[in-house]
């Protein structure tokens, strides 16, 4: 799995079938006990229906098991309030008749063990809620509300965190403001997080694994990068198609602000924030349309990052484009894509097995530093 060492035990095991509106739902997948599993699909693909069924808000036939406990199986059906879960809805849905604190501890008060002052403190600090505490719910911005809603869900001591497009109602600024919080949570929480989204950019930042849903059915599920670079799955055809790869920060240059990272034994340079990052694991995002291929490395070029790669497969990407799946030399698991015109591919006579130099115009970090919670 990307960004983690070794396989994790199964935290969530879902097998649900039923009808929701106009189409049939058939969802069977698992998620590890830690980390973010993204439920990805277009609007109306049934992602939310699956999430609601896992929460017991709507009833589908089948099985839901979380951390070894069965929430639903055949005739057994725990009602939502008896499933220890946190659910963050698309709109924050705070209780307008309660204060910020009243909202935060609503679930905590009802969980076994009640309100834990230390944990409450920790969540308030982690989500920067201190400033919001004295304010009325109606005076909070969209991003602030969503932060309170996330805190409220976590404080109820869930065994599973479900997030239903928590950022889709927010503008770009609010999104950028709240994404780091979710990243930190995801890294720190010792529970499975199921994150519904139709936005690949969010998923690239947050998810470790992805479940692709179309018309109520699970099309594919697995590690994030495997799905992103699965030419058959079609995510590649997105104009902003990208791969997300794990790298380790090995150095930082005070002179020009560049961090040096190790990616499968090769060196990559990106905009860094400081020497304190050295030793941390980060995700690198490589956009397919930023990758060009050359038979020989260019001697004089402004392009900083040139990786030695091997062509694994070539697929049609668009009318004039090809999507080329590449693996790093010496690290066949680390795959990414290049979007190349058919004409260039013909000129270079590209074929699977070819060893080339991939020049990457921009490599960006997909995540910010991660402290641990609990």
């Amino acid at each position, binding site marked *: 799995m990307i960004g983690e060492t070794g396989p994790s035990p199964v935290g969530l095991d879902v097998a649900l079938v039923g009808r929701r509106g106009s189409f049939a739902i058939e969802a069977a997948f698992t998620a590890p006990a830690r980390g973010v599993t993204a439920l990805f699909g277009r609007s109306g693909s049934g992602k939310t229906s699956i999430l609601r069924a896992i929460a017991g808000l709507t009833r589908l036939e089948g099985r839901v098991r979380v951390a070894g406990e069965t929430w639903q199986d055949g005739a057994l059906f725990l009602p939502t*309030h008896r499933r220890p879960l*946190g*659910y963050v809805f698309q709109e924050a849905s705070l209780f*307008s008749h309660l204060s910020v604190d009243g909202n935060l501890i609503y679930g905590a008060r009802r969980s076994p063990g009640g309100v834990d002052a230390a944990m409450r403190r920790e969540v308030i600090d982690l989500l920067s809620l201190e400033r919001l505490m004295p304010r009325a719910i109606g005076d909070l911005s969209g991003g602030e509300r969503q932060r309170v809603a996330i805190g409220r869900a976590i404080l109820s001591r869930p065994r599973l965190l479900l997030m239903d497009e928590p950022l889709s109602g927010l503008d770009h600024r609010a999104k950028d403001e709240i994404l780091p919080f979710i990243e930190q949570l995801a890294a720190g929480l010792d529970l499975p997080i199921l994150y519904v989204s139709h936005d690949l950019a969010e998923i690239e930042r947050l998810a470790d694994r992805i479940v692709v849903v179309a018309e109520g059915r699970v099309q594919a599920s697995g590690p994030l990068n495997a799905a992103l670079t699965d030419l058959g799955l079609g995510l590649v055809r997105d104009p902003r198609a990208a791969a997300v790869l794990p790298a380790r920060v090995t150095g930082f240059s005070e002179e020009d602000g560049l961090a040096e990272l190790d990616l499968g034994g090769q060196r990559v340079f990106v905009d860094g924030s400081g020497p304190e990052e050295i030793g941390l694991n980060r995700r690198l995002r490589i956009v397919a349309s930023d990758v060009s291929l050359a038979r020989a490395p260019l001697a004089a070029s402004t392009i900083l990052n040139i990786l030695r790669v091997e062509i694994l497969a070539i697929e049609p990407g668009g009318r004039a484009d090809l999507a080329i799946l590449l693996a790093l030399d010496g690290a066949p698991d680390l795959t990414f894509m290049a979007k190349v015109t058919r004409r260039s591919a013909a000129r270079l006579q590209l074929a699977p097995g070819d060893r080339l130099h991939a020049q990457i115009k921009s490599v960006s970090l997909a995540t910010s530093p991660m402290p641990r919670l609990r």
Partner: protein
Amino acid sequence: MLLVLGTPLAWWLARSRSLVSDVIGTLVALPLVMPPTVLGFYLLIALGPSGLGGMFGLRSLAFSFPGLVIGSVVYSLPFVVQPIRNAFEAVGDRPMEVAATLRSSPLDRFFTVAVPLARSGFLTGTVLGFAHTIGEFGVVLMIGGNIPGETRVLSIAIFDYVEQLRFADAHIVAGGMLIFSFLVILAMSRIGRRIGEIRP
């Protein structure tokens, strides 16, 4: 009494989409459009010896204080149920679902989420129900029978005084009711405004 009966009824009407709930909703709303005497007549029959009164082994509930209360409740119910029902519908499913995901049981979330969020409806329902119960006339006259000291209510007392041309007494009772009703409604709207201010 109206609230105790009206709240669950309003909740059920706001939630259920079945034909039964529509029929019950219509029945509850009927007193709004019917002349009070029609309702009073049917209630008189229903509460009489061959109706409910007989079933409970009493001679008749009509012309007694309990009968009067039942009649008042039936007659004023729509004024209480309707605003509370509307308020519950405005609250919607989402806050209840959120509460459920936060480990709140159905009864718990009804009292800690639905009722507080629908409080403006409760206020309106209380004011209307109260005002209407005080002011009603027809049903009370039909069922109560205006027995002094037992089933005589203020609104009918005024009617009697006027009939007997005792204008001074009528003035006292009528004026008293006017001032009392005015004060109650004023107080309620002040409270309502204060709640509104707390509420975002």
